[in-house]
């Protein structure tokens, strides 16, 4: 029996819980040559900025055990080019699109949200809070609840009511739950976690940092336990808030782990670099896993790991049938 994989991001229904993670799917056409983007829950764009950005110098990437350090620096051609070419391309194909936005000031985020407001094809807006705040000595917004909430509140205020605003949180903060709570209080309809924690690697041949930027964001299975912990803690504190969980998802099992921790949508990121078909494979494997556990609806397993130890999971049809 097929599993009902529908899930909700706020009031927006997604056909299934697998989305691409921001910055890992190019602008759409790159992955569309491998699979139909309409088959996954949504495509998340790279973080769109007001002005074009050339990004960081190379080397931008270093492989680490079960992980990847990257310092791309939000390369992109800016919101104008995005609205003129990339978003219409996705909209024409009816691909559900979560638009990630990045800025250096609250005003820049707000201006971006205003630009996206009347653009057709925006399913949700994900606010990348891991950008340096130039009004606060370049410290990232996501490390501080008040700064994050200010951005979220101003984006929420200008964004059309029917477009959910998602706050993307970073694990590089003293207390992710308090940042999450501040964002929800600021008006976030959903939360997304985790953005890459900062890492670094040094080339012992050249005796210099491996990345031109020095430090970079760590992604891949190396950060998965960190992601599961963050999703778990935020779900426990804010059980009613939809969570997009991401961080090192390579297989359906990994996606299931985040869903059990409380995510209702799962982002696939670094896996796409290894396997262009990762999204559809993760979706298939996840569906098989949920079915194998005896569930017919994805909604029944979201956050299931939070049930008290020893409690029988509800809605398991195989249990009900055996207790005749």
């Amino acid at each position, binding site marked *: 029996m097929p599993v009902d994989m529908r899930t909700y991001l706020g009031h927006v229904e997604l056909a299934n819980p697998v989305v691409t993670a921001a910055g890992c799917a190019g602008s759409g056409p790159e992955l569309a040559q491998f699979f139909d983007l309409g088959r996954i829950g949504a495509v998340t764009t790279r973080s769109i900025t007001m*002005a*074009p950005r050339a990004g960081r110098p190379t080397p931008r990437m270093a492989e680490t055990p079960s992980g990847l350090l*990257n310092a791309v620096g939000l390369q992109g051609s800016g919101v104008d080019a995005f609205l003129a070419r990339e978003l219409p391309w996705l909209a024409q194909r009816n691909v559900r699109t979560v638009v990630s936005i990045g800025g250096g000031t609250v005003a820049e985020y707000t201006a971006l949200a205003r630009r996206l407001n009347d653009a057709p094809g925006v399913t949700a807006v994900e606010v990348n809070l891991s950008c340096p705040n130039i009004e606060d000595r370049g410290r990232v917004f996501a490390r501080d609840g008040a700064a994050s909430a200010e951005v979220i509140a101003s984006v929420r205020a200008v964004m059309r009511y029917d477009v959910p605003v998602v706050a993307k949180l970073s694990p590089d903060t003293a207390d992710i739950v308090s940042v999450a709570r501040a964002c929800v209080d600021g008006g976030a309809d959903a939360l997304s976690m985790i953005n890459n924690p900062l890492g670094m690697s040094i080339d012992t041949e050249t005796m210099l940092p491996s990345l031109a930027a020095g430090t970079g964001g760590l992604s891949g299975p190396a950060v998965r336990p960190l992601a599961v912990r963050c999703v778990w803690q935020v779900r426990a504190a804010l059980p009613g808030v939809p969570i997009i969980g991401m961080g090192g998802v390579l297989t359906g099992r990994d996606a299931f782990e985040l869903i059990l921790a409380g995510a209702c949508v799962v982002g696939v990121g670094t896996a796409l*670099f290894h396997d262009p078909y990762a999204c559809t494979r993760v979706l298939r494997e996840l569906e098989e896993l949920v079915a194998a556990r005896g569930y017919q609806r994805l909604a029944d397993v979201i956050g299931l790991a939070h049930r008290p130890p020893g409690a029988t999971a509800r809605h398991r049809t195989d249990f009900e049938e055996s207790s005749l």
Partner: protein
Amino acid sequence: MQVTGTVLTTRQVDAYHALTVVAPGIAERFRPGHFVSVAVGGSGTSMLTRRAFSVHDVKPDYGGTVEFVFAVNGPGTAWLAERRARDTLDLVGPLGRPFPLPRDPVTCVMVGDEYGSAVLFAVADALQRRGCRVDFVLGGATAGRVFGAMRARRMAETTTLTTGDGSLGMRGGVTDVLPGVIADVRADAVYASGPMETLRGVTAVAVEFDIPVQAAVEERMACGIGVCMTCVLPVIGDDGITRMVRSCVEGPVFRGERVRFDDVGTIPFDAFGAPGGGSRNAG
């Protein structure tokens, strides 16, 4: 497309390894200059990035085979070097923009340094089929690191070899002998592949002679399909604007004079979206 191919043969060519993999879908679509990306480490590997290799040769055997050449310089390539016949490999390809070919029968000099030479033989074949004259200049640090000298001698009008230590051919680099070769054969175009520094030198020579140069760059890639944005280099566009372009989808073959080789590894101040252009704000 993605193919799980079976390794047909493995061979060691001096300092390099060559793997031939049965991958009909890739072989069918191949054009000279294309590359493939290979997943390394097997299932459950801790190595997440794919390794990109230019295709040395395709053959029609077994529905289509693809051969690529590599040097062991890390745990990923070491794993690849241990593959044996009948092992399977996860390949994605053919990827990238292939070499453009001239319409008329012209004289082309193929310049290859180290195992970068591997990509040139398929394009040399294609050029000869179009009636072009082909001459080779191949180099390497030592005799063992010059790839494909025999094949070049068989197919080319002239072949000039260089080694850094003088153990084979002329002592020096390919760029030292290139001006002489271009002048001797009255070359109309240059096709080049090798490390960035070599391509920089080759392009400078070609510009001196005012002939076009098609250069296949070797930039480190993570995905090979254009989503990771890590393999960028500064390239001047048709409109005169320098952009940080991805060598996997906009390349790996570029018109040499368009690549700002001196600025590779930096963001030139005048590049599209460079800091200072009013966009330094965001992360």
